[in-house]
């Protein structure tokens, strides 16, 4: 008898422990187990800290764009870790300061494309029929244009600035979110709790964004982290082509394109900015990959 009660007490505690663990705690628990994903997460956190601190630590006019021609083309050394460029500017300082450009462009662009794309996708998935058809056809048109070319055309139309770059890349990736969101909504749409919400008198808008969206978030979240990665890559491509962030801002793609002229003798001017882009993009990709596995353990089986 006594034995029995202790047993039950134990199991109730156990139950409570399970109950306390929310979906996100579960995701985090899965995510933590993935070593490469954790490496990605740490790099991303480090990059964000670097981007924020360098913005306040360095003086843009004196440290970043100030030219010191007597110091030009110094090879990497203890004083200039990554050497100096053709204007005698310290490459390491510029790369560190440049983190904020890539990160802000990547993140704002994703925010734009995710907000627009997800809204359109949820509407398409929820209403179906003609609405869905129109939205999907429009997406198809934009998917048909290669992203870099569409980006260039938008930059040409609205002028070259960091804000336009954010919008250009944001618009380019809208169809991706739209399709992902729609696909995620379709299986949820028919669930009983949606019907219950409707009977309870919730309107279309409430059902879409309060009941359907939270239940179809997983693929969208994965798309967001991967989207930051491709946004940063596209932004640096545009800057490399001379159409992204205007000079003399130390955007990594632009620095690479400047360094390209001296590739024969001063290869480090090309190597370091590219390395910075790759590490950043890789970190977001690793994180996104880990998130995908953590959010959907079924896929891993």
């Amino acid at each position, binding site marked *: 008898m006594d034995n029995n009660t202790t047993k039950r007490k134990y199991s109730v505690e156990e139950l409570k422990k399970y109950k306390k663990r929310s979906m996100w705690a579960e995701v985090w628990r899965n995510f933590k187990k993935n070593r490469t994903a954790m490496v990605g997460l740490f790099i991303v956190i480090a990059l964000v800290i670097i981007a924020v601190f360098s913005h306040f630590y360095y003086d843009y006019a004196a440290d970043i764009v100030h030219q010191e021609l007597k110091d030009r083309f110094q090879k990497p050394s203890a004083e200039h870790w990554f050497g100096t460029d053709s204007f005698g500017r310290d490459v390491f300082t510029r790369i560190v300061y440049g983190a904020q450009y890539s990160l802000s462009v990547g993140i704002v662009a994703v925010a734009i494309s995710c907000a627009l794309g997800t809204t359109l996708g949820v509407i398409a998935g929820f209403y179906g029929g003609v609405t869905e058809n129109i939205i999907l056809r429009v997406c198809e*048109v934009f998917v048909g244009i290669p992203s870099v*070319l569409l980006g260039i055309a938008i930059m040409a*139309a*609205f002028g070259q600035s960091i804000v336009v770059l954010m919008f250009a890349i944001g618009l380019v990736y809208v169809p991706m979110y739209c399709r992902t969101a729609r696909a995620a909504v379709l299986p949820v749409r028919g669930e009983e709790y949606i019907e219950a919400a409707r009977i309870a008198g919730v309107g279309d808008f409430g059902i879409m964004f309060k009941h359907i969206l939270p239940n179809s978030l997983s693929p969208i979240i994965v798309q967001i982290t991967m989207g930051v990665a491709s946004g940063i890559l596209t932004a*640096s491509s545009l800057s490399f082509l001379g159409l992204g962030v205007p000079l003399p801002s130390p955007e990594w793609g632009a620095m690479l394109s400047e360094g390209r002229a001296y590739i024969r003798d001063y290869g480090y001017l090309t190597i370091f900015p590219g390395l910075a882009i790759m590490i950043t993009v890789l970190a977001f990709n690793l994180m996104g990959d880990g998130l995908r596995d953590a959010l959907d353990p079924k896929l891993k089986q």
Partner: protein
Amino acid sequence: MIRYVLKRILMMIPVLLAVSFVVYFLMDLAPGDIVMQLAPTDATAEQIEQLRKDLGLDGPLLTRYFRYVGNLLKGDLGQSLSQNRPVMELFMDRFPATVKLAVGSLIVAIGISFPLGIAAATHHRSWLDGSSMVTAMIGVSMPSFWLGLLLIMLFASKLNLLPSGGDSGFLSLILPAITLGANQAGSLTRTVRSSMLDVIRQDYLRTARAKGVSEKQVIRKHALKNALIPILTVLGSTLGNALGGSVTVEAVFAWPGVGRLTVSAINNRDMTLATGCIIMFTLMLNLTLLAVDIAYAFVDPRIRARYSK
């Protein structure tokens, strides 16, 4: 089957028209007037107006656009404004180089991703699996222009083995093809791995092993063949995208493909050339995707049977 193909081709027309409108509209928004660039510096206002009329650039946006589309529907992409030659001719001049690069890069991509992806799938959760996936991830994350420049540094500047740019025969194709191919191999490896993993657990593989088929044969004949459909889809869109010309790789290697043609057209505000190039690209992409769908039927008898019904 033929009805299906025709339907797909007909469905491309509205997409192409919409693409043409988006690009034409964006180019119209762009500041800078090509007529002023083309006109001689001492041209009078009347001469400039006459030139504008000759080029078909007078009147409001929609009038001009409909004039353009009218020709487009007859299959005429118009004259390039900046180079005074038919758009089609300019495009076709550059297209062979783009096809060469696209095919070359695809061969590189397949050469890397099939062995890597299959090795990863057959040694699931081993160090081999992990390292191939990290390699694939690095391939996706590397800016292709950077990889291109690194290759130039090593093979053209340091070792003097290969040309650093231009299109001058097979040797000049190697570096651009590796650059673009490495990038494509990233996503392709992941697809090969995941679709092989799907197939590897199927009962018919166990049956094949049980009846004594060698492991090599099991993987090559039984598994890979069945895993091919999702791989084909990714291959198709990779090829389709490469046919649009990889702008950055072409820029790095001074490759005379359509990507650079399009970029220079946009920068010169040459709206007929830019719109024409992008329409041609969308057409190529859609045709490639259609070709992939048809290829399914050849790969998979089940799909073939569905068409014949």
